[in-house]
């Protein structure tokens, strides 16, 4: 059996089913309106990606929630932009 302490020390990226991801978002305090736009229940405002566009789970089917600064990205290109802004892209020198 896994030891709890070991598990606590782990950091996971999760790839969930759409149903699970939507449930998790709701638990985090977001709502999804009838058009698919994610709304922050606290502010009543739509959630935006790092390029400033609203996230719509019906249109932006490849969206992700990124923790560390709690940001939504609409797709892989936005994720790459975020990695760049966080200085997390490291180019290894080709021999």
């Amino acid at each position, binding site marked *: 059996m896994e030891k709890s302490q070991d598990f606590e020390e782990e*950091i996971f990226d999760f790839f969930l089913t759409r149903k699970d991801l939507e449930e998790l978002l709701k*638990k985090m305090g977001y709502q999804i309106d009838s058009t698919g736009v994610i709304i922050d229940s606290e502010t009543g405002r739509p959630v935006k990606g790092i390029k400033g566009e609203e996230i719509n789970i019906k249109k932006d089917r490849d969206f992700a929630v990124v923790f560390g600064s709690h940001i939504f990205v609409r797709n892989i290109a936005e994720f790459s932009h975020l990695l760049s802004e966080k200085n997390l892209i490291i180019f290894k020198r080709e021999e």
Partner: protein
Amino acid sequence: MDYSFLSVLDKLIDRVPLFLKILEKIESWFHERKEVLEIDVETLKNLMNLYKIFEKLKEEERLLENKEIRAQFENAEKFFEKYAIGWSSKRGKYVIIRKDYEEFQRYLEKIITLKKVESKSFFFITTLDIGFNYEELKTTPKYLEEDLVQVISRLPSNIKFEFISLINLSIHIEKLYLDGRMEEAENIKKSIKSVYGDFGLKFLNLFQRKYLKTFLRTLKEKDPLTMEKEIRKFFEEDTRYIFFIHKDMTIDDIEKIKIKVKIALQNKENYVAIHSLGEATLIAESIIKDIEKNKIPEEYTRHMVDKPTDYKTFTEKREEASIRDFSVIWYKGEAGKRLFGFLLNFV
């Protein structure tokens, strides 16, 4: 039966043995009372594909009228209800975790509270059909020549993040092409277009064709202000008449390119090029044929490329085939020669 029905059915039948194998693995896992199971990339990809089929089946209920398909669907449903899939940074492995595992539940609770708190660790949550692509982009090392790494580190701050992101994506897409993963590459290209617009696609194409890499090398000794000026000139002027043909271009798009190329040649612009790969080569050939019906000014040197690349694709029978490059370039004068040198990787 229509095509989509047959396509889903074929995929499902193809993957039944794999699915049974995964279930068998999980049975033995239960037996060992493990809560976290490390899996290899192939198993992850199989689960990802099964999930895609599972989602498709949910959308097309009539497929579920077939008893065998329904049974597989229910198996998949049970599986995805019980287990979560992800990547463990500590282990450097993909994992399956039982959702009813107490520690997993506690972990999720922790994530939920993170909404208001900045966490020290960087991690993401997405859906199963795209998670692998995110993870690959995040964890696969990107190799770049030493001199380019130095130039990139000195890029002006207003374009730095965008350029680094686009270089990251360009290297990633190059790898996907070399691996024969065209569909995934095309999906990422769509996301580049939606985030960076036409500039993003131009960047990607110029990088792929070596123009951009070689150009960036010429900036080695330049100060940030000059760098910015030259970068703008490179994208807005020097490469204005380089066209990249895509297989999904409309007749209207193609006609517009024909007109632009004809005018550029009439105006004796220094560098005019048409590049194409794979299925798009047929479109490019027809464009060239049409353009060359008119006399090309004699100042131009014509260069043609028509050969297979190292990029791969797979036929319907899963046989490997290389992707063809078809390009025609007309260049003249020192400026034209310089840009032609960029294509050939000469500074």
